[in-house]
């Protein structure tokens, strides 16, 4: 079964309609006083997590205690972790993180350096459809599968940095320790829900190299606790390019391609993907779309304000070299890091696989939609009148879920009742003539 990281805390949910209206894929309905996530439609972007005033949308991550099931434990910090702390160098953060019970820390930023290096080289040799679309943000890849299937061929077929990091760290640890694969635990420290989901349901690869995903929030407080006691310093291996991936535009910068476009915030990304599909942006070489505002530093599992974090990342980058990191991997065979499972289009938007049936349904939706008030108030539990009409035709809702329709119907019935109530039976009051 498909695993979703974004889930509902039923006790906290008040059944308000904030989330249903903000969900970019219309994947939430309110039923029986609680929000209900439609699993097939959810892309784990985390918008609802941010917008819920009652914090009823929770991102399910792995329990840190799961580390104990492994003999050798490796932490993979996302580059965005470096933007979370005030006055801490990357070395400080990595050292504190390792002291949280890990045997080793392997930077995802370092893997991002490698991905940038591969990208720079592969775009020269392979004939990609333009614009090449980044595969780094899993929420965007899922969005494309659902709403822009014709753009699936434009997606860059390189593994995202987190999987590259997982693979290298795992392989090196096996060599170094002689332990078996299942004795090595690789844990990603994630800024977002989409990455949690993509580890459980890999995109473009058979199986993830990661064993567990920890929330950046959980790890944040652990690092702060350890901070004072840190002695031995681990130095970072990543360059400014890899660290730059934390911010929107970082991946684009790393491609060295001339004409890149990066867009953050899921609604903005949807708009630009429409333009790409229309062929309006054929002059763009590379498109980096990120669901969160600011990029990964804006992820729903981060702690620091995304603008502050972005600024910190920029400051940290200034102190780093540009191309130090990948020297070791220049001889590596790229094929090891390529996606090898073809992406499938999602059919979740289809009303019916039979086009004639779908056309019939669409005509009924229009008919019902015309009779609705058009307020998009959400009181029916669907994100808007159009969505309610769809839900009715699909059989998930009724016309009288609309409170305005219900009120109108009650009014008609009340008038009818009123009319009946003033009618006097002939036995009591009618002086009507009686004809033979």
């Amino acid at each position, binding site marked *: 079964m498909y695993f979703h990281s974004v889930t509902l805390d039923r006790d906290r949910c008040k059944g308000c309609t904030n989330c249903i209206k903000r969900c970019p894929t219309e994947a939430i309905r309110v039923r029986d006083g609680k929000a209900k996530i439609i699993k097939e439609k959810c892309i784990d972007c985390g918008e609802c997590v941010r917008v819920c005033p009652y914090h009823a949308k929770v991102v399910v991550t792995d329990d840190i205690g799961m580390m104990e099931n492994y003999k050798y434990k490796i932490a993979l910090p996302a580059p965005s972790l470096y933007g979370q702390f005030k006055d801490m160098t990357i070395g400080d953060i990595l050292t504190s993180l390792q002291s949280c019970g890990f045997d080793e820390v392997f930077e995802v930023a370092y893997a991002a350096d490698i991905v940038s290096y591969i990208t720079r080289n592969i775009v020269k040799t392979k004939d990609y459809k333009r614009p090449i679309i980044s595969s780094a943000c899993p929420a965007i890849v899922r969005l494309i599968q659902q*709403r822009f*299937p*014709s753009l699936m061929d434009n997606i860059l077929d390189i593994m995202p940095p987190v999987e590259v990091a997982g693979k290298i760290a795992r392989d090196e640890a096996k060599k170094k320790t002689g332990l078996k694969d299942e004795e090595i635990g690789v844990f990603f420290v994630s800024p977002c829900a989409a990455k949690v989901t993509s580890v459980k349901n890999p995109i473009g690869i058979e199986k993830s190299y990661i064993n567990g995903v920890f929330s950046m929030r959980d790890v944040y407080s652990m690092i702060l606790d350890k901070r004072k006691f840190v002695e031995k310093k681990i130095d970072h291996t990543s360059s400014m390019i890899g660290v730059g991936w934390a911010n929107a535009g970082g991946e684009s910068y790393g491609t060295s391609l001339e004409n890149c476009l990066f867009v953050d915030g899921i609604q903005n990304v949807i708009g630009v993907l429409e333009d790409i599909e*229309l062929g309006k942006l054929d002059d763009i070489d590379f498109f980096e779309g990120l669901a969160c505002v600011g990029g990964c530093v804006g992820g729903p599992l981060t702690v620091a304000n995304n603008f502050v974090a972005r600024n910190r990342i920029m400051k940290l980058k200034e102190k780093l070299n540009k191309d130090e990191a990948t020297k070791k991997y220049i001889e590596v065979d790229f094929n090891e890091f390529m996606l090898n499972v073809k992406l499938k*289009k999602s059919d979740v938007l289809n*009303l*019916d696989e039979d086009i004639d049936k*779908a*056309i019939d349904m669409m005509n009924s939706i229009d008919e019902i939609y015309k009779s609705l008030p058009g307020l998009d108030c959400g009181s029916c539990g669907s994100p808007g009148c159009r969505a309610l009409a769809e839900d009715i035709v699909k059989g998930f809702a009724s016309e009288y879920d609309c409170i305005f329709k219900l009120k109108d119907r009650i009014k008609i019935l009340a008038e009818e009742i009123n009319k009946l109530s003033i009618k006097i039976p002939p036995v009591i009051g009618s002086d009507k003539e009686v004809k033979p």
Partner: protein
Amino acid sequence: MKPYTMDFDVKARDFSSAGESSSKFRKTLLMLSIPSDIVRRASIAAYEAEMNIVIHSYGGKMHFEIYSDKIVIIAEDTGPGIKDLELAMKEGYSTAPKEVIEMGFGAGMGLPNMKRNADTMEIVNHDESGTKIVMTINF
């Protein structure tokens, strides 16, 4: 079989809402299980036709008919028509006003793009009373 139809008014020179009808049309095609390459081609053909109305006409209409085996797109406007059809079909030939070109529109690819993406394209009318173009895409 009754087709699914959609109708939109398109305003002249209204660049802020230009492309809206094509965008709604595109989303509808996805819901109707139309194959993704057809969705792309139909969206491009519709968008270019809509933009032509925005750029060149005094206003017009977009009409869409979706059947189980084909899509018909009709773009109709009142306006100056197309004076030299042969030239207009040439890539890069544009009669768009300077200020429109400065906005990044009117690159002279409209009609050629429509022709490339539609299976048939018939220019029913292109005199001073206006332009009417009928496109079909089969699948």
